[in-house]
């Protein structure tokens, strides 16, 4: 019924600044440094993608941004105000689905508005709009266990979007989906982003995903993590899946990103990391083909 109509909430895009943040675990006898002197900016109304080797500390950074944990040193501000605990202006999507199993797709999507007593006519319209945007109109009465992995992620995207957060934070949301579903998800997700250009922060380990989605690409060092490089992904939107392979600019950015990641991997390789060894091997094969 709302197929053609675009329901647009008023977007207030936020901005996050991370300044000289450290995060340590354990006490001073056995201290694990996960984030060390890390600074970056999540720019307003842009899709910033963070890519880094597994275990470098990306999820740890996300927990800091979400406010579930506090930095050991440094400050994180959102629109100038220091972050103090979780807040509804920042919505976080984690790796594992967090749809409530006891609610239908529709009730899951309406969770936030109901919780805040904002179940207005506009909200219901927005729910309809988002349902069709993520292709779940026919699945509104289904429970999460009845949805496929990709559908669950889409339902969760809709559930997050309806709250109209100033910033969306996503931690490897499409990890574990098969390649086809993943590409479908990129299309859904980037369409949602292009629809209303809110501030998005997306963490991944997949270089194709990163290039397809990003406005800005933050490349992270190994643990303790820092930003190694920032690349502007200036490929026009809407992008096509074929761009990742055919677009020259995309390939250029990809090789640049991979060589920085390769350097990082080599460093930890020489320190005896097994994950890094895998990466170095994969990278060598890839550059040989290119």
């Amino acid at each position: 019924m709302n197929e053609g109509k675009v329901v647009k909430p008023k977007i207030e895009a936020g901005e996050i600044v991370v300044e000289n943040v450290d995060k340590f675990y354990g006490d001073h006898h056995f201290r694990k440094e996960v984030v060390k002197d890390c600074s970056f900016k999540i720019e307003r109304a842009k899709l910033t993608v963070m890519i880094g080797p597994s275990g470098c500390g990306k999820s740890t950074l996300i927990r800091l941004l979400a406010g579930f944990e506090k930095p050991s040193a440094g400050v994180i501000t959102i629109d100038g105000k220091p972050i103090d605990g979780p807040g509804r202006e920042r919505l976080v999507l984690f790796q594992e689905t967090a749809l409530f199993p006891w609610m239908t797709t529709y009730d899951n999507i309406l969770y936030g508005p109901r919780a805040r007593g904002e179940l207005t006519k506009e909200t219901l319209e927005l729910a309809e709009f988002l349902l069709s945007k993520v292709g779940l109109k026919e699945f509104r009465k289904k429970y999460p266990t009845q949805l496929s992995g990709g559908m669950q992620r889409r339902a969760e995207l809709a559930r997050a979007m309806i709250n109209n957060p100033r910033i969306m934070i996503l931690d490897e949301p499409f990890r574990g989906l098969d390649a086809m579903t993943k590409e479908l998800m990129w299309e859904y997700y980037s369409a949602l982003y292009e629809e209303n250009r809110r501030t998005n922060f997306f963490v991944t380990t997949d270089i194709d995903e990163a290039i397809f989605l990003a406005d800005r690409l933050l490349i992270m060092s190994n643990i303790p993590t820092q930003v190694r490089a920032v690349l502007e992904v200036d490929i026009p939107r809407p992008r096509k899946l074929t761009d990742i392979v055919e677009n020259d600019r995309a390939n250029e950015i990809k090789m640049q990103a991979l060589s920085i990641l390769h350097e990082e991997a080599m460093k930890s390789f020489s320190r005896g990391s097994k994950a890094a060894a895998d990466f170095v091997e994969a990278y060598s094969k890839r550059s040989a083909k290119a």
Partner: protein
Amino acid sequence: MAGRKWGGTLLWRGVASITVFLVFWEIGSLSKVWLKWETFAWLKEMLVSIGWTKNYLPWIGAVPAPTEVLLAWGKVIDDVGYWHSWYMSCLRVLGGFIAAMVIGIPFGLLLAVNRTAFGIGFPVFEVLRPIPPLAWVPASIIFWPTQELSIAFVTFLGAFYTIVINVIGGARSIDTRYFQAAQSMGSSSWDIFRRIILPGTLPSIVVGSAVGMGITWEVVVAAEMISGGGSQIGGTSGGGLGFFIWNSYVGGSYEQIVVGMISIGIAGFISSELLRTLGHRVTPWLRLR
């Protein structure tokens, strides 16, 4: 999720297995007749050689045959006292069980969500829990003014512990992801309780109730036997199914003992089926894998 598909092969198998069981039972019970026959002299000799000198099969030969039981059932089926026994036992089970739910669920939830309440309540609970409900019978006869209340109380205890333990366990095992997600969407504590903790605990409440219901029937029968049945309406057997069995034993009617036992079996089966149906209804998301 088993037991949902009644009908088809499952129903057929059920009927077949019960029929076979009844036939064997009948043959075994009638051994006092056929063991005397010439044809089975070898079996008789074998039994004698292991020291069994009675002229019927061990154990099963002493049990009244299904046909005899059915006959005895036919006699009590229009007896008010028999149905009053049903009524009394069901009432006690229902009363104790509902009380256990009404008190146990909020109590369990309180212990699960409130640290202080847990600190105060749980140690007492854990000290009392290992005491079997039946050990409470004498004490509760002293505490409570009427026999009826003391039976109900013991029945209540049977289900209470199981329900509380399940509620606490269930609420505790709700994934923190759900709390974080709810929080970040602007949920208040009350909202989180109502829409996350309560439905998240519901499957455990259902399981706890089913187990609790089973214990309730065990306890009520024993309590009725010990306490002498409570009220006495409709002749000799008015005090519940447990008392019905006890009374039949005292009166030497072995067929009626079996009638009482099967009656309890049926009552237990009906109540667990009812609970299962109800449980499925309140947790629709669980049956749709």
